[in-house]
């Protein structure tokens, strides 16, 4: 075992740090960066400027082919860049899905002219992409989507509704999977496209979350035309293409969410139990110890994944562990921190709330963490089936034409 960089890695790390030092501000103080309300117009400008700079310097799309502006670097260099970037304040939240999921799908399925047209502008941040998969009736059953596309000459005509689309209102293009044959079984009647988000007939409405955030959207399609040339993969092969996209989702690693254990330690030094700092209380200590062990376990599990990556191995669904453990831990730490504050924990006013109100904020945002991008229950299923080889759930819809599968009232 060895935690040191190789010579090549060290050189790259120095380059990255030099670039960041020259172009960004070092992070200081403990105030967490919260992304409650998504990205506003000002933030969009900052994001665009930063992405352009990053691409210019060759730090965007590190692992991508050189032909597309990348460096064909090992994934470990991406990890190193991320580690370095974490120490700086840089604008985020606009390109993760486009560059992490949409463009990789394009690279696997689009034709050379299309790649020529779309990849570099995306990399330079000039065009923003979103992903249109989820639907109201789908939920955990992602493939149970009903938005339909019907062939009309050289075009397809899309009608229906997508939901949970991050950044739809800021996007230029989107990738979408739709049902083109409802008489086929669920996974077989789907087809995949990319489309212009400014097309006539697209109506985007932000979703107001309980946390106050509004970065997800509902997207309604009324007779939206997409040329057949923008189809990715064969007709009826949409599910296969979607899996490519989703595979890339699992590789993307989320932000560190606050409060972390250290924030709880900080709080427990400050609030008092029976006149003494809470951190002296045995119950508080046990909880801190348990969450610390879990945090460290996740951190080192990621180190093991990075090691596997750098040896050219593909990390498996073991990564599901990360979100499964983290989301509940966040909710539990948030709730427990508030318990330590007593009634004062209710208050979120800036001038009165403890710890920048991050515990309160996490209490309200953590329920979505346990659901979005694969619920706790789905993640446990994934681990049981794909890692441990358990049989899949009994599928009553298997092989049935999609339009004959029972549906509920909700």
């Amino acid at each position, binding site marked *: 075992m060895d935690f040191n960089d190789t010579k090549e890695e060290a050189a790259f790390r120095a380059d990255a740090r030099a670039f960041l030092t020259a172009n960004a501000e070092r992070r200081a103080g403990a105030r967490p960066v919260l992304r409650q309300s998504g990205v506003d117009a000002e933030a969009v400008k900052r994001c665009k400027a930063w992405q352009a700079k990053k691409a210019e310097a060759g730090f965007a799309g590190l692992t991508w082919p050189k032909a597309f502006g990348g460096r064909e670097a090992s994934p470990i260099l991406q990890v190193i860049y991320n580690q370095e970037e974490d120490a700086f304040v840089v604008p985020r939240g606009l390109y993760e899905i486009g560059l992490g999921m949409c463009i990789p799908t394009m690279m696997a399925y689009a034709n050379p002219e299309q790649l020529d047209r779309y990849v570099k502008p995306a990399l330079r941040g000039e065009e923003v992409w979103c992903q249109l998969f989820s639907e109201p009736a789908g939920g955990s059953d992602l493939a149970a989507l009903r938005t339909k596309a019907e062939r009309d000459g050289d075009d397809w005509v899309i009608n229906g509704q997508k939901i949970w689309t991050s950044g739809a209102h800021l996007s230029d293009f989107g990738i979408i999977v739709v049902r083109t044959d409802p008489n086929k079984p669920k996974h077989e009647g789907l087809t995949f496209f990319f489309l212009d988000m400014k097309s006539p007939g697209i109506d985007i409405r932000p979703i107001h979350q309980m946390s106050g955030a509004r970065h997800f959207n509902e997207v309604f399609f009324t007779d939206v035309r997409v040329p057949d040339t923008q189809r990715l993969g064969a007709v009826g092969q949409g599910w296969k293409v979607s899996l490519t996209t989703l595979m890339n989702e699992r590789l993307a690693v989320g932000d560190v969410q606050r409060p972390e254990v250290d924030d709880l330690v900080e709080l427990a030094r400050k609030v008092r139990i029976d006149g003494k700092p809470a951190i002296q209380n045995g119950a508080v200590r046990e909880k801190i110890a348990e969450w610390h062990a879990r945090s460290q376990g996740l951190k080192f599990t990621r180190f093991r994944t990075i090691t596997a990556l750098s040896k050219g191995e593909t990390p498996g669904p073991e990564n599901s562990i990360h979100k499964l453990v983290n989301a509940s831990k966040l909710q539990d730490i948030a709730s427990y921190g508030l318990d*330590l504050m007593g009634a004062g924990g209710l208050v979120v006013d800036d001038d009165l709330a403890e710890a920048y109100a991050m515990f309160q904020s996490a209490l309200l945002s953590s329920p979505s963490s346990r659901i979005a991008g694969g619920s706790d229950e789905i993640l446990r299923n994934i681990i049981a089936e794909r890692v441990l080889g358990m049989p899949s759930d009994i599928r009553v819809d298997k092989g049935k034409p999609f339009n004959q599968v029972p549906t509920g009232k909700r």
Partner: protein
Amino acid sequence: MNFDFSDDLKQLRDQARRFMTERCTPAVVRRSLDGQETYAADLWREIAEMGWIGAAIPEEFGGAGLGYEGLCVLAEEMGRAVAPVPFGSTAYLAAESILTAGSDAQRHEYLPKLADGSLIGCLALSEGSGNPEPSAIHARVVGGRLTGAKWPVADGGIADIAVVVAIDEHRQIGLFVADLAGVRRRDLQTLDPTRNHARLDFDATPVQRLASGGGWGSVQRVLDRAAILFAFEQVGGADACLQMAREYAQERFAFGRPIGSFQAIKHKLADMYVALELARSNAYYGAWALGADATDLALAAATARVSATEAFHLASKENIQTHGGVGFTWAVDCHLFYRRSKQLGLGIGSAPFWKNRLVDLLETRNVA
């Protein structure tokens, strides 16, 4: 043995449930959530007219004299409806403080007005972060005048009077009644906007001391009794969450079948049910202890509080989880319960406070 509410009280419960279902709809709750109103004043007036605020107040002080079991039954329905009214602050905290610690004159002065809704009451205990404890009380009464900041005070922004925990000239803890007219107040933003919370800044405010409200013991006694009533509100809220989750799980389909047919959901609901039933049983015992002024009232209260806080927290968060994506939207009602769960769970001391107190009492009991 008869460990159940009387038929009369069951009728009262059914009546309250019907009334609240009709008048305290989610739309009403959301008017407070969205800041259109500080609390549901119309609803509050109707509740007052039915005599519910004074359910446990003896008739001689203007109450309905239904006893504590009656108040418990109503508390459960307030919780079920996430009622945006100062019911707990007025009935469990202010009125109870005055009833248990006030002189006869004080009772006659305040209780009839609290009972008929002409005064809203609250308890001003907290001074910022931390669970209740004597060393955290700095508000001070000198020469009958109170100075100090109290926050958050549930319903402090809409209350007419506050029962204030403060220290006196001799550094002894006492319970004091303050008229809030003229006191500087500021509404606070909190996790649960459906209940008013305020910061009260007393500055030589004239107060009168509750006759037998001396020492931390008198504060704890108020909290103990309130804990049982809070437990019923929490049980009501938890039950509502379980019912929401049940219905959703039966009606929502995934993979061609109701999500309630998946063991992940079934077992989650079973766990919610188990926590709720344990909490309900402990709350029932608390109701009995309150009515009988039993010697183990304090232990019964701590036990009921610990169970009920756990049950509502579990039910409110797993109700969201059962709902999936829509569960964490503003438009769906799940979060009303999740917020209220924390509001009730922190309000009179959080779970760690009550667990510690429970063991204090166990230790005393086992020694005795």
